[in-house]
Each structure stands twice: as structure tokens, then as C-alpha cells.
């Protein structure tokens, strides 16, 4: 399997006035193409920071982040945007749907801008929301909203899917449903999925688990036989 993402000695320092916080100090790891990867670690470890840098919405202070052979740390703003647009799907803990758009429109919002999108209706069908496509986010439950968010990310048909605690705000059953969806995507379309969680139970379904602690990579290991999402008990 070819390496798709390479983090090499990445540091991230936040500077607020006199205080400097090092969110990352020399994190290095690699993820293969099509891999379902879970990032775990305690709160404040730097998980979100890693994902943001990987997703091209934040920049590292030093080090290199190579995605599909391109060092996104060295990209200018525009190329980074193109990278986000074509290659990355992002799912947030708090859904971040556009409140004023229906479920379908939220998906269309993403599919409209990329080169080879999936059919929004089909994607919504895939997340089992075809009956709610004309509902506004406020009319949907948390899980449904998160599925719309995933559908939105999926519709772009991205090479890299980044999810920041997608199940954090959901009950167990709904969370499993979401995880199932993600795993299915990864398996079906060979999409690289990187998922953050502080719920170690999820690590079981990962092909690769990256443990983060204090801004560094504590350990990276592969699961020889990843569990199916349904088997995960949240």
C-alpha cells in the first residue's frame, strides 16, 4: 500500500501575547491510501490541531505535511483552497451545517464546487436520509445532522476524509450508524479516512491507530483485523 499522508516533524505553536503554547512538537506519522485511521489521545493532546493542519485549514509552524506527494505546508492560500476543494472532506464535531439550507442543499453546497462530485441525492440516500432531504438542519436530530455533514463531505468524493469526533455529540446507536457509514465509504471507494476520537472503543475498527499525547505521537499501530463498526460498543 502506498503512503498517502506523511507528517514529518510537524510543530504548531500558538502565540497569544506573551504566552506561547506548543500544540504540536515534532509529530511524525504516515497514513496509507485507503486506510481507516483513528487518532486518539486525551483532551488537549493536539488531535484537532493535527486534523486541521491535514485538512489545510491551519498551517504548521514547522515540518512538512505531504499529502499525495504534495507538501501542503508549502502551498499558498489558493492552492490550499484547491486542495481542500478537491481532495478533502471534513466532518466536524458540531456538524457546522448551513442553517439556511435544506439537507439536500447543504450537500449540494459541497458537490457544486468540485470536479467529480457524487450525486447529492444518492449520497443522502446512502446515509439513509432520502426522506428528509428537504428539511432544514433545525428540523433534524443531531445524528441526522451529522449524517448530512458526512454526506456533504462524501458528496465531494474526496480522497481524504477527516472527521473530528463525529460521534461526540451523539448517542451510542447513532454514533455506530455514523461509523458504519464511514467505514463503508473507506472500504467501498478506497477513501482515506482519518477520524479523531477520545473514545478508545472506536480504535477497534481502525486499520491504523495513532495515539497522541502532549503534542507528540505516542504510538502508531495497526490492527491486524479491524472490527466492523456494528461491533463497536459506544
Amino acid at each position: 500500500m502506498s503512503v498517502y499522508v506523511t507528517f514529518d516533524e510537524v510543530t504548531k505553536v500558538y502565540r497569544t501575547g506573551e504566552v506561547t503554547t506548543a500544540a504540536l512538537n515534532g509529530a511524525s506519522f504516515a497514513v496509507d491510501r485507503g486506510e481507516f485511521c483513528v487518532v486518539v489521545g486525551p483532551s488537549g493532546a493536539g488531535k484537532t490541531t493535527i486534523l486541521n493542519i491535514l485538512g489545510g485549514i491551519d498551517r504548521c509552524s514547522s515540518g512538512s505535511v505531504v499529502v499525495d506527494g504534495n507538501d501542503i505546508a508549502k502551498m499558498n492560500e489558493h492552492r490550499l483552497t484547491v486542495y481542500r476543494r478537491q481532495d478533502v472532506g471534513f466532518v466536524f464535531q458540531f456538524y457546522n451545517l448551513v442553517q439556511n439550507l435544506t439537507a439536500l442543499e447543504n450537500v449540494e453546497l459541497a458537490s457544486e464546487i468540485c470536479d467529480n462530485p457524487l450525486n447529492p441525492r444518492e449520497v443522502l440516500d446512502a446515509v439513509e436520509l432520502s426522506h428528509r432531504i428537504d428539511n432544514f438542519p433545525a428540523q433534524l436530530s443531531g445524528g441526522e445532522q451529522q449524517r448530512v455533514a458526512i454526506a456533504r463531505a462524501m458528496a465531494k468524493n474526496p480522497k481524504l476524509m477527516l472527521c473530528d469526533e463525529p460521534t461526540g455529540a451523539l448517542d451510542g446507536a447513532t454514533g455506530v450508524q455514523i461509523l458504519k457509514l464511514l467505514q463503508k465509504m473507506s472500504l467501498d471507494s478506497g477513501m482515506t479516512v482519518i477520524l479523531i476520537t477520545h473514545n478508545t472503543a472506536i480504535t477497534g475498527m481502525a486499520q491504523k491507530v495513532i495515539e497522541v499525547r502532549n503534542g507528540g505521537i505516542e504510538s502508531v499501530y495497526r490492527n491486524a483485523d479491524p472490527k466492523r463498526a456494528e461491533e463497536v460498543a459506544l
Partner: protein
Amino acid sequence: MIRTLRKVRRRELLNTPGRFIALFLITVLGSGFFAGLQSAAPSMERTADVFFRETGLPDFRLYCDQGIAIEDAQAVRALPEVADAVPAYRVDVRAAIGTASSNYAIHSLPDSHREADRARLTLTQGRLPETPDECVADAYSHIRIGDVIAVNPDNAEATLRLLSERAFTVVGLTWSADYISIDRGNTNIGNGRIANFLYVPESAFDSPYYTELNVALANDAQLSAFSDAYGERTDEASELLSRLVQNRAEDRYGKTAEEIAAQIDAGEADYANKRSQADAGLSAAQAELQESEAKLNREEERYRQYVSEFNAGKETAAANRKALEDAGNALTASGEQLAAGRAALAAGRNALGELSLQRDALTAALASATDPAAIAALTEQLGALNAQMTELSVRLDAQEGELAAGEQAFQDGSARYGESKARLESAEAQLATKESELAAFRAELDRAAEALTAGRAAYEQEYASANEALDDARKELDEGRAALNDLPVPAWTVRGREDFPGHTGFRSDADRIGRMSLLLPWFLFLVAALVCLTTMTRMVEEHRTRIGVLKALGYRRRSIMGIYQFYAWFIGLFGGVIGVSLGLLIFPRVVWNAYATMYRMGEFMPAVAPVPCAVGLLGSTVAISLATAAACRRALDSNAASLMRPQAPKPGRRVWPERIPFLWRRFTFSQKVTIRNLFRYKKRFFMTIIGVAGCTALLLTGFGLQDSVDGVVDLQYGEVSHARATLLLNHASGAAEETPLNAGSDGYDIAYAHLAAVDASAGSRNNNGLVTYLYVPEDAEALNGFLSFRERRGHKPVLFPPAGEAPAAVITERLANAMGVKAGDEIAFSPPDMKEVSVRVAGVTENYVYNYIYLTSEAYKTLFGIAPTFTSVALKSDLPEADFNDLLAELVATENVTSALPVSQLREIMDQVIANMSAVVWLIIVVASALALVVLYNLVNINITERERELATLKVLGFYRREVAAYIFRETTTLTIIGILIGLVCGVFLHNYVIASIEVNEVMFARLILPKSYGFAIAFTLGCSLLIGLLMLPRLKRIDPVGSLKSVE
């Protein structure tokens, strides 16, 4: 705890400069515009009031048709309410400088009031007059120092009698407080308008009666002339003065009536006296005449007797004469008989002698005879002879005896004849003397008769003349009595300042500005309040969590509210003070300057109108404070826990356009988003639309104002009036009369007309101080080439009624509007010194400069019963400017032409007005743009901060920067466009309203907005939108998806 709050407060001001600036600017704009514009009218009034006070403008001017005596002035002055009452002269005359004559108002400068005069007059050149033949003249004129202004001799007798001088040398030029505007007022001479004023020493007037009385009320309280208190006080004073002058009028009437009555009584007595005298004298004369007549008759009788006696004598004498003559004839005949007898006797004797000789011869022969036969024959012969001789002798002797007796008788007869002749002759002589005596008598009688006739004639004449004199005296007395019966009570007129020239105009101008400044700022105020409300709501929403925390920590409601109220009050007061100060500094002066060409009232005196300033200052503060309270209340009412939870984003909703599927389907995806968003945030929607619409409306008004003012000149002198100059003539002229204006030949064309200033009214509405002229073309047909009679809208021609129909007038639009009339309605008007007439309106014609009532000359004749005098000449020409000016100079030099007013000169004045309007226009444009900028900035600012999360999401999704910008600005642009469209509609109305508000008296501004102005208004608004967009781009760029999406706050 308090310290922490203070820190929070301070950070609030500093950390969000965008919000702070938006609120601050809108406060400055709102309060500044409000306080500034509303102070404009009070500033105008204060300037005027200070000027009135400094120049000692009287509060009233009193007029009396029988003149004002010095005692009247004293009586008025004696009123406790009156500070001073100064009598003065004023007379309106036709006068000329060289050949150019026009109407002048000549005022007296009372010598005892030199100080006051100095205050009243502002000399621009030269000095005040010192001798009666000097004057100071109107500075707003072409008069120069050294000019001699000669009063025309054709002025009314009474007018000329008032003046002791006939010509005045100009020694100075001046402005006068009596004339606050360039309008010099109406008069009842010439064309009805005063062209210029003159001031001459009082000694130039020659009359014991003054023509006006200037009354100044005591004004210890320093009331403003524009205050209600002043109005009340002058109303009271006006009544008081009216009562006083009424009394004086009655007094004067009483006195005059008494005088006249006394005169009549004296006359009556005199008459009776004369009458009896005349009667006595006449009857004596008549008796005498009768006596002489009787005497004459007696004499006549006597004469007749004498004549008959004389005639009898004369007859006798004639008979005697006849007898005498007969006797004389008989005598002569007998004398002749005698003579014949004697001759016969003598012849007998001679025959005897011869016989004797024969006898001798016979004797001798006998003697000698020897022959007896012969002797016998001889003897026989001798014997025969002797016998013959004897017989003859006897006969002769007898004859002789007879003769002697005849002679005796003849001598007797002769003697008798002589006697009778002598007697006759003496009788005849007597008769002759008697005849001459008779002739003398006759002559005497004739003389007496003549004398009698003469006497009678003299008597007749004397009688007639005496009667006539008496009749005259009678008539005079009767007339006197009649005059006494309808002796006019002196008519006084009390005129307040509103009747002084220019004052009503100024008042209405100030009112108009006041009215305009009522509407515009409220509008801005509304937008400002909306801006504040949306901004503060947003601010509090942003602070939910913090409010929740503070609440949870146990801070009291009031303390938390205090943070925001502090913010609100700080901005409100700070912005208010700055705004009000700037507003006061800028607006009143700009407005004043716009009117400065029209009025002449000393230094500008800005007034701080307390109410607008307080409202401007506190209103904005209170508005923000209320908006803050409203925004906070909801947050504070929720409990701390729910506050600290992320706020549920405003839910999306379906909007009504979605329910029209065929329409909705046509929108692109992003358009749908935009439409939904527009409907989602209603407050912002209205704030923006009202703000942008306001901006566009203001801009359109501003640019349109320029068009309207600019347009006036082009429309009036391009499309409505085609004349290039107007000439005024000394005396009436017309095509029929001989005239030096040989039209057509020298490259110009003329049309004669009658022109007079009039007062017009319709029902209860009058022409509202508008300068109005009656214009009567000599030939309405020919005038068409000089004036276009058409309606403004649609350019439908306006026609005079055909000849023969009832007279009807064409009137100009502004006049029609002022009086609220349209075609078919009735208006009434009265030219100077003429009765008021009523006439139907035939049509309303487009016109911009001045106001006219047009009548055909036939209609004029029908209405007034006299023919109009054509003293105004419209002149049309295609000559180049220089040649045309030469032509005018040439024409003015001709005797009958008093003045020539080229249109170019009017255009110059208009351009001045326009230049001043431009300041107002730019003020409006600046305010409007500032409004648009602030509103749009605020909208975009709120949009961005509120939707940061959404934008961050878009960024994460990989939207390009321009796509993100478009996502936000499409909304702004849509709102802007909707706002612009609404604004354009409002702008048309606002423009009309503002135009009507600021229109000056002489000119109707065009109700016209050029397409380019629509373009400018749109471009400016879009420009503001674009500018804000460009300013906000960095803000979009700065949105950090990481920060924005991390959690909810």
C-alpha cells in the same frame, strides 16, 4: 467585581472597532443631520432677527390716505407700548437716468435720526446725502455715483407736489434694511414693480403731511421677530394701533366736518344777504325803468300830437302854396296877356304910324297929285285911310284903356300875390322850424327809448348775473353740503412686517427649510435607530455565553446590563456631541449661503436650536440605549445555563418565493441561498433596504436638485421663452403706431405686450407672495414665436379661447399650484390702480421664471373696458452675442426705450442661484453617501461576524475567496439593488417635496430628473456598496476556520 466589569467595558470599546465605528458614525450622522438641519431655519431667523434689531426695523408701518400729521406721530408715540414712531415720506415715481426710466421708491431720511439712518443703511460706496438734491441709491442696481436721477414730469400731480426737487444726484450707494431681499416690492405706477430705491433728505419733500409712520414697539424682552410671543404682541399692538388711528381718523373727520359745516353756514348767510340785496337792487331798477317807460310813452304821445299838428300846418301850407302858385300862374298868365296886349297895342300903334306915314305919303302925293282922278283916288284913298286911321285910333285908344285897366288889375293882383306869398313864406318858415323841432323831439324820444332798452338789457343782464352768482353760490353751498354728507373718514392702514417687501418671502423660505429639515433627518434617524438596534442585538448575541457566565457567577442583572448601557451611552453621547457640533457648524451655514444671494441681512448668526440639539444628542443616546435594553432583556431573561449553551442558530425556513415552483426552479443554487438569507434576517433586511433606499433617494434628490435648478435655465430660455431680451418703453406703442423699432429689417423680431404686476387669488387662496405679472400680448398669434404655451407634462399646447368667447386666462404652473386651480377654475386679480376682475382659467402653461397671467388684448378690453397699453417688447434675434449687445445699446439709446433686459443677464442671476444650490446638493450627496457607507458597512460587518461559522464552513469546504465573498456580497448587492429601486421611487417623491420646499419665489424649479442623475444615484450607491465590499474583503480573508469552527462561541 466592579473592576472586572470595568475591564470588560473597556475591552468592549476597544476590541470591536468595526462595531464601534459603525455605531459612532451613524450616531454622528443621525444627530448631526438632525440638529444641524433643524438649526438651519432658526439660524436664518436669528440672523434676520439680529439684523432687524440692529437696524431698528419698525414693527409697523402706518399709512393714511389723507396724510399723516406730526400730531398723529406724537399720539402714536405716546402709547406706552410704542418705543418710537418716526414719520417719513415715501413716494413712488417714474424717474430716469438719461433716457432709461424705471420705477423708483423715494424714501426720506429724517435729519433728526441720522444715527438710526446709518444703522438702517449700509453704504457700499460714497456718503449720505446732505442737500435736498442729493440721494443715495440702491446698491443692487446699475446706478453709479454721479448719476442724476430725474423725476419724469408725467408723474401724477399729487406725486410731483410732494417733492420739492425734480432731480437727484447720486452721492452714495447703499443696502437698506427696508429691503431685506432683492425684491423691491410692488407699486401702483408703471409696470407695477419697484426697480430701485433712493433715499433723499427729508427736505427734498414738500408737504406738511407725511406718507408713512414707522412704529417700533418697546422690546425690552428682546423677543425674536419669529417667536410666537412676538406674533401675539404684535397682534395686540396692531389692534391697539388700529384703535388709536381709528380714533384719530374720527377726530380728524369731526374737525374737518365741523370746519366745513361752519363754512357752509357762513356761506348760507352770505348767500341770503346777497340774495336780498340783489332782489332789492333789481326791483328798484325795475321801478325806475317802468317810470321812464311811462314818461317815454307820454312824450311819445305828445310828439305824435305835435306831428299831427305839424302835418295839418304843413297841409295848409301846401294848399296855400298851391293856391299861391295858382295865383302866381294866373298872374303870370295875365301878365303875359298884358304883355301880349301891349305888344298888340304897340303893333297897332306901329300900324297907325305906318298909316300915318302912308297918309303923309298920300297927302304929299295928293298935294303933289295933279290928276284929279289920281287926286280923287288919292283923296278917296286918303279919306279911306283917314277913316281907317280914325277907326284904328279909336280901337287903339280903347285898347289902351283896356290895357291900362288890365294893368291896374294886374298890379293889384301882383300886390295881393306878393302879400299872400310873404304870408305863405313865413308860414312855411314856421313849419320848417317846427319840423326841426320835431326831429329833435324825435331824436330825444329815440334816445330815451334806447336808454330804456339799454336800461332794460342792463337790468336783464344784471338780473341774470346776479342770479347766476347766486346760483353758483347756491350750488357751491349744496356741493359743500353734499361733500359734508359724504366726507371721507381718513383711512388708516396698519401694516406689520409681513407686508414689508421681502419679509413674507423670507419667512416662507425659512419655513420651507424648517419643513424640509423636519422630514429628512427623521428619515436618517429611523435608519440610525435600526442600525443601532441590529448592531446591539448582534453584540448581545455574540456575548450570550459571557452574559451567561456573569449571570452564573452571580452578577446582578443591572450590572450586566450596565456594561452594555455604558457602551450605548458612551457612543450615544460621544457621537451625539461630535455630531451635533459638526451639524451645527456645517448645515445652517451651507443653507444660509444658498439663500445669501436672495437676501441681504448682515452677518450670519448661527442659532443653536435647543430642542433639535437636545433631541439630536439625547435621542441618539436614548435610541441606542433602548436598542441595547431590548437586546439585553432577552438574553438576561434566559437562564445562565441556556445562555452558556451554544445558541441555536437562527433556523432556516422556507420562504414564499419557494412556493412558486416555476420561479424558484429558475434560480441558481446560490441565488436560492441568497433569497433565503434575505428573508431570514428581517431586521437587517429592513435596515439595509431603508438605509440604501434612503441613500439612493437622497442622492437622486441631490442630483435631481441640480437638474431641476440647471434645467430651469435651459427649459425657460430654451424651450418656453424664445425671446432674447425684453425692452420697456416710455409710452405705449404698438405695431399700428410709429416706432423706431423697425422689426425684421435689422435681424431681430419683436412682439409688443402689456405687462403689469398683479395680485391674484382664487377663493380663499392667494398667490402667496409670488411675483406675478399680467401679460397681455398685442397679438396672441404672433406671440407664439416668442413663448411656447404648453403643458409641462406631455407638452400639450395650451390655447387661448377663440375670439368671441368669454375671456379666459392662461396662467403659469407655479401660480396655479400656489392657488390650487386648474383649467376651468376661476381666478381673480387686480392690476395696479384697477378694479379686481374674475376670469376663467383656460389652461396652465409650463413656465419657470416668475409667474404670469396671460390674457389676449380682446379679453383685456372686455374685462377692463379699456385697451391695454403696450409698453413691453419681447425681442428675438439670431445675431451673434456681440452684435446683439450692440443692437440693445442702440435700442436703449432711442428715446422711447427706457430699458433693455437681455436674457443673458437673467441667466447670470440664475446661475448664481444654481451655484448656491450646488452647496446644498453636495451636502445632501455627502450625507447620503455617508449614510450608505455606514449602513452597508454595518450590514456587511454584522453579516460577517454573525455568519463567521457559515463562512468558515465554506472555507473548509474549499470555496475560493471570491466565492466566499460572493456568498456574502450577493446578499448585500441584492439588498442594495432592492434598496436602490425603492430609493429611486422614493427619490422622485422626495425630490418633488424638497424642490417644493426650497423653491425661491421668483423661480419654479423644474420637476425634472435627468437620466444621468438616476445613473449617478445608482452608481454612487453601488459604488458605496463596492467600496464597503473592498474594505471588508480583508475581514473575510481573516476569518479563521479553525477558530470559528472549534466550538460555538
